[in-house]
């Protein structure tokens, strides 16, 4: 296994790069600048950094006002608070007004670890995906995260970029450029499609190895943009393989699994299995232990793939 980095590490550093490059970015944080890494930006551009205090609604509202004034406003905090605590602000102010507010909260999913269920956000993709005008990105590694943040800055309108706390293996090479609305075929295969996002991409690749050892050819997609989803790539893949497993560090309700189900349900129905957290809250533990506990390992993905293939056959 190669180098590991947390996707959140890309946040502050990329913001500094954007400002260095002359982009009119500002940051509003809610007392979590060290954890989210926006402190890096504060250090470089103190006049463009605003701490709202422990007041997430105010964080989103202030960012919205900065965006009304023409700024590209990034917000911090943790995924659970930035989406749940301030949902109405995100809906009624950011999205309804169509503002340049870019939510990039960190600490999404169960890889938050010991802080437990109160802090492990497993419903954020569901909440953000249903908002008109919101684009939802789930980068697979720190390089994809940096690129996704650049895309969010350069593209008008609201964005949600899901970042994580735990160090995870790098999937992409240096220089990877994130394309909005594109799913990446990382491995070609003919028997089953493994459609993954975020930290599950690397696990889907590992699952494909396990399956290959049994003579099962798995195609691996990184569905890095959950919305707008790359329906063409998903449909083309399942048309080749005839079965699909979705893999996400999120509830099986409302996130990638649902997005893929919607696409294939309408355009190309094939057997589907969803690997994700099965409608329960998280719990304290070590991130890797939790991935095993909730069935989010390569072994679980491979098992789901066999089931999907069996149903098709």
């Amino acid at each position, binding site marked *: 296994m190669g180098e590991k980095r947390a996707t959140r590490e890309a946040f502050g550093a990329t913001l500094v790069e954007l400002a260095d490059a002359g982009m009119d970015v*500002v940051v*509003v944080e809610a007392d979590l600048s060290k954890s989210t890494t926006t402190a890096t930006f504060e250090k470089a551009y103190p*006049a*463009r950094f*605003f701490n*709202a*205090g422990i*007041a997430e*609604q*105010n964080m*989103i*509202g*202030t*960012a*919205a*006002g*900065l*965006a*009304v*004034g*023409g*700024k590209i*406003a990034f917000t911090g905090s943790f995924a659970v608070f930035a989406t749940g605590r301030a949902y*109405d*602000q995100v*809906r*009624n*102010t950011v999205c*309804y*007004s*169509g*503002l340049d507010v870019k939510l990039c909260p960190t600490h999404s999913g169960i890889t938050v670890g010991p802080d437990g269920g109160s802090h492990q956000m497993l419903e954020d993709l569901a909440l953000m995906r249903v908002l008109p005008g919101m684009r939802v990105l789930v980068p697979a590694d720190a390089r994809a995260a940096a690129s996704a943040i650049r895309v969010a800055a350069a593209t008008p309108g609201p964005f949600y970029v899901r970042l994580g706390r735990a160090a995870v293996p790098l999937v992409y090479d240096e220089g990877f450029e994130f394309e909005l609305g594109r799913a990446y075929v990382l491995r070609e295969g003919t028997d089953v499609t493994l459609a993954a996002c975020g930290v599950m991409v690397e696990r889907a690749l590992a699952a494909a190895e396990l399956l290959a050892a049994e003579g099962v050819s798995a195609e691996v997609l990184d569905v890095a943009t959950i919305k707008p989803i790359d329906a063409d790539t998903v449909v083309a893949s399942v048309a080749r393989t005839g079965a699909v497993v979705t893999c996400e560090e999120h509830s099986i309700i409302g996130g990638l699994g649902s997005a893929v189900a919607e696409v294939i349900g309408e355009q190309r129905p094939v057997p589907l299995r969803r690997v994700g957290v099965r409608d329960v809250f998280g719990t304290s533990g070590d991130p890797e232990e939790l991935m095993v506990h909730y069935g989010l390992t390569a072994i679980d993905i491979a098992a789901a793939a066999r089931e999907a293939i069996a149903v098709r056959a």
Partner: protein
Amino acid sequence: MAEGRSPDELRELARRMRCDIVSMLTEAGSGHPGGSLSAADIVATLYGSVLRHDPAQPALPERDRFVLSKGHAAPVLYAALAETGYFDRTHLGTLRKLGSILQGHPDCKKTPGVEVSTGSLGQGLAISNGMALSLRLDGMMEPTVYCLLGDGELQEGEVWEAAMFASHHGLTNVVAIVDNNGLQIDGACSEVMCLGEIAHKFAAFGWEAVECDGHDIGTLVRVLGGARARAEAGGKPVVVVCSTIKGKGVSFMQGLADWHGKTPTAEQAATALAELGCNGEVA
């Protein structure tokens, strides 16, 4: 930039706006007369005298900004925008109808002159703070962001998060205005959820609070017109707490929570328009 109007002209503007409010709400058949009428003198004073703005150029960088945090009072804003020339008055008759530029609550994507969409209470002050910060970052020290809130709306926690924020950052380019009509939907604010002394609360949050009669045009011109200078002099954001009467100007609506979100029948509207001295040219 628009010319400031005399007190008499402002009174006439407010009267016409009240006529517009009654007419458009009657035509729409739904909406919020009480809190629109209570704010008519405040909003008329802003658009007719205090705000430096140019209706022909709604995006003029040098303009003062207005945020209607109590978005349900959209009719008072639409009346001011129409009366000062942001769009044609004929739109007023389309309020709340399919395809209208005048949505039930302010929509910045549809209506010229609306800075940001509102309607979910409690959010306007934080947005105004962000707008004020943005102006500051751009070195635009002249424009002021005026934010109108309801008294019931002050029950929302985000208002106080924003109040803390504005004083922490010394946002002297934000002026908050409270339409203190004492009523919300379920009755008197003092009975639903008592706000105590609003001016004291803001003062405790580091603001300079000024109280005034929200229906006396001469006072409003002086207090609202002087709020920014006062903020600069004191180095703190200023809030103007305006004593108002919900439904002001229509005898049978005044002081009644029941007229918060109910529109008049054709007969009631005729009475109201007659009381307001509205001629066919306005209605």
